[in-house]
């Protein structure tokens, strides 16, 4: 099956147009019609979309529902946030060249060992990749090897992010406790708040999303991808056929966590703050609902869902903040009961209706047609 099918081509064009119009609209005109605020907001949505994509990869294609993917996202954010905190340097309130403000405030004498090397950009990028990846590898390895699956795995992953949230609340851990990291000043020596950096971060996020989508598309169309889908549809049968189900699950889970971590790393500078609330189970579950709403088992569905939910959330929480939980809760219920294939399923259904009679019935495509309910 080709990696660059029609959908991916459309997606590539959409992303290209988005990057061009946002860059041009905010920088290329003497009278810009897109504010830096909007650029930052869209950049954040792109990061959420990366997270949703990573959830969809394991849930939609492998049947593993992780309720703790926010933890990997947050860890990536924290890893990159450490670098951003070190970049503040003497610009902070206390003006300490080495220690970030919150450490001076709490009374740390010297930098904890966890922070060694965090002043280098390369180390930060390595941490962003390694920390979520390693945690997912360790957690996935122990879980999948002892065949913890289904709802058990979901609850365990939720416990994981909950435990991490409690841990990151502790001041003594040296990651800013309740307040986390904030007040970033510079990135690679440039001012974080300058328009150039804002747009660059947006473009970086868009490129990350695009490459993540291509990577996922490549993965699910590969032989490994077929095994993943087989695991989703009947794990026992795949095992009896001689595949090492555990290894496949661990590898894909770790890759997905790595993607989430990268999304988190770009999220931190654009949000301007990173704190333990990203470890809260509710955040992870919200992202899962994005996937369910957009359409599970369809990569673009996850992206669409992340944009839809984030956009509605920002709209509704300013217009009628009291209604947002009702809306989100209702969405959970309705999407799960009525819309198994989400917005993407609806789109596909619509396209089918419109083109009915003009187009030949497509050949059976296991990747884009989630066969069995999970």
């Amino acid at each position, binding site marked *: 099956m080709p990696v660059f099918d029609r959908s991916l081509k459309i997606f590539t064009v959409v992303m290209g147009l988005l990057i061009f119009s946002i860059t041009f609209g905010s920088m290329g005109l003497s009278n810009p019609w897109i504010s830096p605020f909007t650029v930052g907001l869209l950049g954040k949505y792109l990061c959420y979309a990366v997270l949703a994509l990573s959830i969809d990869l394991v849930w939609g294609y492998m049947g593993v529902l992780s309720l703790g993917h926010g933890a990997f996202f947050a860890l990536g954010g924290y890893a990159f946030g450490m670098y951003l905190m070190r970049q503040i340097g003497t610009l902070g309130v206390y003006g300490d060249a080495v220690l970030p403000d919150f450490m001076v405030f709490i009374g740390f004498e010297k930098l904890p060992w966890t922070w060694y090397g965090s002043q280098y950009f390369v180390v930060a990028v390595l941490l962003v990749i390694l920390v979520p990846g390693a945690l997912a590898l360790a957690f996935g390895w122990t879980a999948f090897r002892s065949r*913890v699956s289904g709802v058990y795995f*979901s*609850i365990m992953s939720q416990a994981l992010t*909950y435990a991490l949230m*409690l841990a990151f609340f502790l001041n003594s851990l040296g990651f800013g406790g309740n307040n986390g990291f904030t007040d970033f000043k510079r990135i690679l020596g440039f001012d974080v708040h300058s328009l150039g950096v804002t747009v660059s971060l947006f473009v970086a996020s868009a490129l990350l999303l695009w490459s993540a989508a291509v990577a996922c598309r490549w993965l699910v169309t590969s032989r490994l991808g077929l095994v993943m889908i087989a695991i989703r549809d009947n794990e026992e049968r795949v095992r009896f056929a001689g595949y090492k189900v555990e290894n496949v699950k661990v590898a894909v889970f770790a890759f997905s966590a790595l993607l989430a971590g990268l999304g988190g790393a770009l999220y931190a500078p654009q949000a301007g703050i990173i704190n333990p609330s990203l470890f809260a189970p509710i955040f992870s579950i919200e992202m899962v609902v994005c996937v369910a709403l957009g359409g599970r088992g369809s990569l673009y569905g996850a992206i669409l869902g992340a944009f839809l939910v984030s956009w509605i959330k920002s709209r509704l929480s300013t217009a009628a903040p009291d209604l947002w939980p009702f809306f*989100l809760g209702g969405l959970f219920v309705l999407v*799960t009961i009525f819309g198994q294939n989400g917005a993407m399923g609806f789109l596909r259904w619509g396209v089918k209706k419109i083109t009915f009679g003009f187009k030949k019935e497509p050949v059976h495509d296991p990747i884009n047609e989630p066969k069995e309910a999970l």
Partner: protein
Amino acid sequence: MAAQDQTNQLPMGQLPIGQESDSGTIFSEEVIKSLTSSKVSDRDKAIAAISQNFSPLAAEVLTGLLKGGLFWDRDSQAFYLESNGLKPIWPTAAPSAAVNPKKVAVNNRQRELLASLLSARSLFDPKVETRREAAKKLIGAPNVDLTVVQRRLAEEDDPRTLDNLKIVLAMGALKNQEGSEAEKLAALTELERLYAPAALEDIKALASGSNPELAKAATQTLKLMEARAQRLALAETLFFGLSLGSVLVLIAIGLAITFGVMGVINMAHGEMAMLGAYTVWATQTILPGQPGLALILALPAAFLVAGTVGGAIELTVIRPLYNRPLETLLATFGLSLILQQAARKGVSSMNVAVITPEFMSGQWAIANNFSVTQGRVIIIVFCLLVFAAVYLALQKTRLGLEIRAVTQNRAMARALGVHSSRVDTLTFALGSGVAGVSGVALSQLTNVGPNLGQDYIVDSFMVVVFGGVGNLWGALLGGLIIGLANKFLEPMNGAMLAKITIMVGIILFIQRHPKGLFPQRGRVASF
């Protein structure tokens, strides 16, 4: 200054019991003069004189002196007491507003003296609670007049007050420079028997003292008391662990039914408990002035409310999602958001005030220095009762039989005429109702607000998964073990870390034993 303190030490008031003094004579000319004098020693005299008087007014004056609320107005020659503004207390003809009031000052030593005078005074109070409090305050207080305590010892009939008075006497005997060795040895035995941690410093001083006989005995006493302190600490940790464990079990029982028996993940389970807690608030609002009765009435009410809501949830949301457990999880999570927000909008986003009735808030003294809140004991017992009730309901009733039949083999149960979908609804209602009942218990321990359910949902899932799904005994043991482990870990490295340790511990445990403590065996296991 120290030397002066020594010479000025007054014995505690000699208490001529039963002698009624005329309040008019408190402020004799002598007293007025010494009380308003600028000399510390003069005021000592005045305090001694007033302490001889046993009228309520004298007690008020002493309390006023202690708190710095006694004022003297030189212009009108009158005393005023501070209580929401200055009130004249003497003479009766004093003008109601002071012209030029000046505080009657006391120093720290005098304040200590006043405190012990006042508490010695309350040793003779007719109310037993006041006497208990007073005797407790005398332990370790400076300048205690032992003769007063001795006198009270003969008349006192409350055992707890009696024990405390004995401790006071023994401590006095230890400190007495002229006391004989035998007296001190007896005092040591007494202190050990009654277990008085307040005396530890004195005993330590004795252990390193010059008298070898006494030093040996004191060291022995110290050792015994330390062992006792450890036992007490252990008992306390055990109790708090059981208390936390029983709360976890209470919530987990309902979950063990819906998750364990039915295999349905109900993320709104915590909100069922929240509904139960709000039911307590509602019944207490309907029945003002009778919080105890309202609490008891809330038990069946909460069961009905939460059970009805649970049944409705099963019919509308869960029924279409059977065989899709992951989606049940998401849908019920959405429901929990809606229910929380409904509580916020419908009642208040703040916590509501739930009254703790007297029988729940009292202290229950098991031993000297070891008392537990009655409410916690009641909740431990209540947890066991609920467990027994649910267990019997599942084992001995027709519904229980049908529930177990449907759980084990749905098709066969249907073939035998069990209305399986009706059983599903009832099972879910039962689980939710039990959660509501647990909410009633929770309302007595924690804040009742929209977030009540959320705070416990992760923990209770942990209990069920740890104990073994589909097994009530697992929920009971799992909950108690987690509660105890939590409380035993807490002193070592703080509450947060204890919780994290337990989470990680359970995650690792599940990796080794994926089916929990009590895995289901046989044919049921493959279900």
